[in-house]
């Protein structure tokens, strides 16, 4: 019997290995494609100008989702206003100034743990702190603060990575030209890290826009006859609205449910697309 040479055997093993990896990669892509196709197929017929710009009517069973869209927009923007300065400031401290000691390590551990807390726990915490203790009531501002705490670790981590990616030699050169450390950060490091930072902020906000649990007890309500008039008003929001019409309203048409899901998906994927565009444009323009 003629046996295969070891080279042939190695080659065959490699072929099988590549095939396996290719199949696994395809499996990883399938869910997102399946979700997209399913939601678009089921939800697209509901999309109309009235659906986007109208108020719900007939106990949510018909009409539009405009107040939920507006509410999610306000919550996301409020969250951005709160979390961006805090997140970027903390990242600058950690990447540029923090000495390598126990204190810094405990800050890092705290941030990692913050990222691991379940979102419903954030919701409960927001209820306790912002709604009740700080007496903000069920309001956009209470929801925005709760979402801000939840997105903080994502933004700190991505911003810190963007700052660390800026070559150390730029810092040394800037210092050697008589710059202070802060001048170096402000004039060299931050501008170079800006695209990565913006990407991180958008990805954090994308998560905030789609979450239900943190706003469940802090900002969102079942139905409002008008749009919120101040940050202290409660609001409707897309993820919560979807939850309500999927579980709490008997005799609900699935078309409106999937239409709402589709709008939320477009909102979130649109932000993701924006982040990708900013990142790839910056990469093309980058000089290092």
């Amino acid at each position, binding site marked *: 019997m003629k046996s295969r040479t070891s080279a042939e055997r190695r080659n065959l093993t490699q072929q099988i290995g590549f095939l396996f990896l290719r199949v696994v990669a395809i499996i990883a892509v399938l869910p997102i494609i399946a979700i997209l196709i399913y939601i678009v197929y089921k939800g697209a017929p509901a999309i109309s100008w009235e659906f986007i710009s109208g108020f719900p009517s007939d106990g949510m069973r018909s009409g539009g989702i405009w107040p939920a869209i507006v509410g999610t927009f306000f919550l996301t923007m409020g969250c951005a206003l709160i979390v961006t300065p805090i997140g970027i400031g903390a990242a600058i401290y950690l990447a540029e100034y923090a000495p390598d000691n126990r204190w810094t390590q405990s800050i890092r551990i705290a941030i990692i743990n913050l990222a691991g807390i379940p979102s419903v726990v954030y919701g409960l915490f927001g209820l306790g702190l912002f709604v009740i203790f700080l007496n903000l009531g069920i309001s956009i501002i209470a929801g925005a603060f709760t979402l801000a705490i939840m997105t903080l670790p994502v933004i700190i981590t991505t911003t810190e990575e963007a700052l660390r990616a800026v070559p150390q030699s730029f810092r040394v050169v800037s210092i*050697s030209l008589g*710059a202070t450390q802060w001048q170096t950060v402000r004039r060299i490091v931050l501008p170079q890290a800006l695209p990565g930072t913006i990407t991180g902020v958008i990805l954090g906000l994308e998560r905030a826009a789609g979450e239900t649990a943190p706003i469940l007890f802090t900002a969102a309500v079942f139905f409002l006859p008008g749009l919120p008039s101040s940050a202290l008003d409660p609001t409707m929001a897309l993820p919560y609205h979807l939850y309500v019409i999927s579980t709490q309203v008997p005799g609900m048409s699935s078309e409106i449910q999937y239409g709402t899901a589709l709008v939320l998906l477009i909102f979130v994927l649109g932000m993701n697309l924006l982040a990708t565009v900013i990142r790839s444009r910056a990469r093309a323009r980058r000089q290092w």
Partner: protein
Amino acid sequence: MTTKNKIITEHLVLQYSDGTESLKDISLDIPINAISVIFGPAGGGKSTYLRVFNRLNDLAKVTKISGKVHLYSDSGGYLDILDPKIDVTALRRRVGMVFARPVVLPMSVRQNLTYGLEIAGERKKSHLNQAVERSLKQAALWEEVKDRLEDPAADLSGGQQQRLCIARSLALEPEVILLDEPTSGLDPISTGKVEASLQELKKSYTIVLVPHSVQQAARTSDYAAFFLQGELIEYAPGKNIFTNPVDQRTADYIEGRFG
């Protein structure tokens, strides 16, 4: 030596926390308006010594530093470089530095040159423009880039980038220029241009150079110091040390018996 000294070093001792590249009792005077070359095998403390002069070692973990390093001004007064209380940003404007690899900042050619002046508070357009032209001419780069001032500095060739780095430190009108193997990444033609501009520059500046080869040390030096494992072995005018070294170790290194 009868020449006027720009920097004097007495009994300088320096140690890093990890024990590398320390300096052992260095005493050495850097004469004004000349090229002083610090040469020797890798790991001998040449870069460390250079970085003492503009306190760039502040960025590293230095566990011990002692001795005397004084920077003299034309009036005869001096600045105690090792004094922790001095304004290091002002010192770094007086003592410029050029690194081994050309590091252009991610901005235009012009912005690279005006960066140091702008952070020092210079706002006048006319002053900044003058500094750009003067420094580029001094670094023998003006003719090549005068029409490309607004282009990204990264678009220049390697040799042009390194001369831009030299021009960038000249824009601040320093008194001393430190160059740490400035031609190690350059082709022979670019190296020749840099060496030629150094010969021009020494008329108005004091230059301390860590060369990338013994040949470059011999070509460029007015004075040369041989560093070996953190010690100063020999210091003499260049024409003496490379033809007639006193110490056997200097002779062995120059003749290539060890590297």
